[in-house]
């Protein structure tokens, strides 16, 4: 089959690779109809995520048609499904608490040591996202093997466009959980850093959950216009002093809840005793943790800090004093995707949530290399790329 494979920094290629096969009884094989490039994929593209291997198939936001099932899969051939990016077993303690991204059993045992060393406990399995989260081939491909297919995938009714439901796999539940973690109360002003797909869905979710006002922060005019279109007030951090603006716009109180949907992923993903190859890619010069620091300092006393943005390791100069002295609550985590799917699918079907507005580019899987370059180089206008395996190259 054809698939988008990683070969190194800024080097991704559409190659011919072996078809996936059923390995375990609960597996299913999905023929992919739509697959997206995520902000998280850019960090693989930039070469900042350790434990990648040349030839790894990327992609963790995808949907398609069931074409093969293992004996214990509950899916049926021909069903259309959206697949969560988190591979969760449904039967461990964490899954029983619906903390799916804490699942103990999705990541092959031999790949769990790095996370256990870095974070103290094992990491979940993720599609197409390095070997420390399992080394699972991802979904920017014609076909993908889906483990625990009886737990994760959600069946989509016929007649609903891929574009409307594709983001159930990752960024929609991520934005939703970000807003949920902000514990929004009546009258709240919520500030959201980052107007990428995750931030935009967090804005939409916060308003649905009853936020009185949402203030969105970015520096890309087009992304800010999408935020404004959702009903947010917007701030451009290149033009405005964010702390001063937030304090003024909240009457000197500070936002009740702050959401960091910027993240810094690779920054500090590495602790001192991890191999040099990993150290070499440490993203030292970045100013991205700036957003999290700024959010914590701006947040009102007794307020809430929600962090959907990805962090992997240590960060310097974390304003822990502000967190403690102001009595803030911090909530974060990889998204428990499976927990939110039924309710979010219903909201989409009832037109309460629109997911299609952020798709800027649709192209053939064969053109995925171009898609990565555009999403990377033209962030203002290129807000989301959806790849279609059955489109002809150049379509």
């Amino acid at each position, binding site marked *: 089959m054809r698939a988008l494979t990683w070969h190194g920094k800024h080097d991704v290629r559409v190659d011919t690779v*072996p*078809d996936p*096969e059923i*390995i*375990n*009884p*609960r597996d299913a094989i999905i023929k992919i109809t739509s697959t997206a490039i995520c902000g998280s994929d850019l960090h693989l593209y930039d070469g900042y995520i350790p434990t990648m291997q040349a030839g790894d198939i990327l992609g963790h936001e995808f949907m398609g048609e069931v074409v093969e099932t293992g004996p*214990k899969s509950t899916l049926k051939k021909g069903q259309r499904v959206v697949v969560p990016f988190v*591979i969760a*077993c*449904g*039967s*461990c*303690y964490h899954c*029983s608490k619906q903390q799916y991204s804490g699942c*103990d*059993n*999705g*990541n*092959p*045992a*031999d790949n*769990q*040591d790095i996370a256990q060393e870095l974070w103290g406990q*094992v990491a979940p*399995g993720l599609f197409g996202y390095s070997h420390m989260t*399992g*080394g*699972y*081939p991802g979904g920017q491909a014609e076909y993908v093997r889906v*483990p*625990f297919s009886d737990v994760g995938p959600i069946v989509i009714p016929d007649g609903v466009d891929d574009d409307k439901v594709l983001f159930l796999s990752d960024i929609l539940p991520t934005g939703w959980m970000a807003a949920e973690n902000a514990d929004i109360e009546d009258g709240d002003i919520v500030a959201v850093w980052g107007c990428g797909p995750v931030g935009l869905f967090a804005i939409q979710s916060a308003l649905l959950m009853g936020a009185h006002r949402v203030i969105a922060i970015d520096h890309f005019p087009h992304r800010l216009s999408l935020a404004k279109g959702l009903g947010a007030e917007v701030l451009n951090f290149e033009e405005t002093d964010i702390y001063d603006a937030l304090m003024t716009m909240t009457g000197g109180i500070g936002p009740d809840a702050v959401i960091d949907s910027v993240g810094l992923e690779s920054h500090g993903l590495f602790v001192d005793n991890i191999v040099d190859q990993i150290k070499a890619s440490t993203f030292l010069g970045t100013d991205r943790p700036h957003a999290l620091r700024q959010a914590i300092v701006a947040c009102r006393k007794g307020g809430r800090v929600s962090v959907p943005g990805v962090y992997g390791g240590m960060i310097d100069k974390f304003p822990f004093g502000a967190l403690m002295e102001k009595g803030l609550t911090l909530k974060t985590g990889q998204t428990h995707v499976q927990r939110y799917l039924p309710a979010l699918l219903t909201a989409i079907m009832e037109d309460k949530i629109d997911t299609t507005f952020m798709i800027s580019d649709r192209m053939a899987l064969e053109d995925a290399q171009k898609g990565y370059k555009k999403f990377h180089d033209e962030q203002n206008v290129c807000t989301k790329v959806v790849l279609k395996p059955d489109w002809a190259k150049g379509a």
Partner: protein
Amino acid sequence: MAEPELPGDIVRDDAPAFTSKDRDERGGAAPNGESSVSGVAVTINRPASELYAYWRDFGNLATFMLNVEAIEVKDHDRSHWTVAGPNGSYEWDAIVTEDVPDTRIGWRAEHGDVPNSGWVSFTEAAPGRGTVVTAMIAYSPPAGIVGKLVAKVTQKEPAIQARRDLRRFKQLMETGEIATTTPPNREPKS
């Protein structure tokens, strides 16, 4: 061990001996004076009786113990083990030294290339959380410290393997399968 200053001072805390920073104390956990001791625990969301029963049927262990090439059950208390090591295979007979149904199994190697012994215990976790499975493994590396270093590099070091094997045991018991990305006997594709 801490020196008591006041009556009632804690001279030995409640941690398992195999987590001690003191080499001697740690070594004291080795049932037969083996030189390397390690332990690991995992909580499995299944009843102790089920986990014990699966484990006690030693032929099952090769399912999740990756380095085990073969386990031949000879009688109720004796099995013959062939295990991949850093420099080829090692063999021994494992004799059950302790067997408390649903609770604990202890063993010791005889006639073997690698002196080793250990135990696995099954204790009820907090309500609703299943069973805590703890394993202790003591062994003396065949070629002394060098063997151990080599084993570490090749990731066949018994303590690392024990940790991974217990994760696989948990996966198998909780999900009915072992997470992997490798198809069995993958045919080379053209």
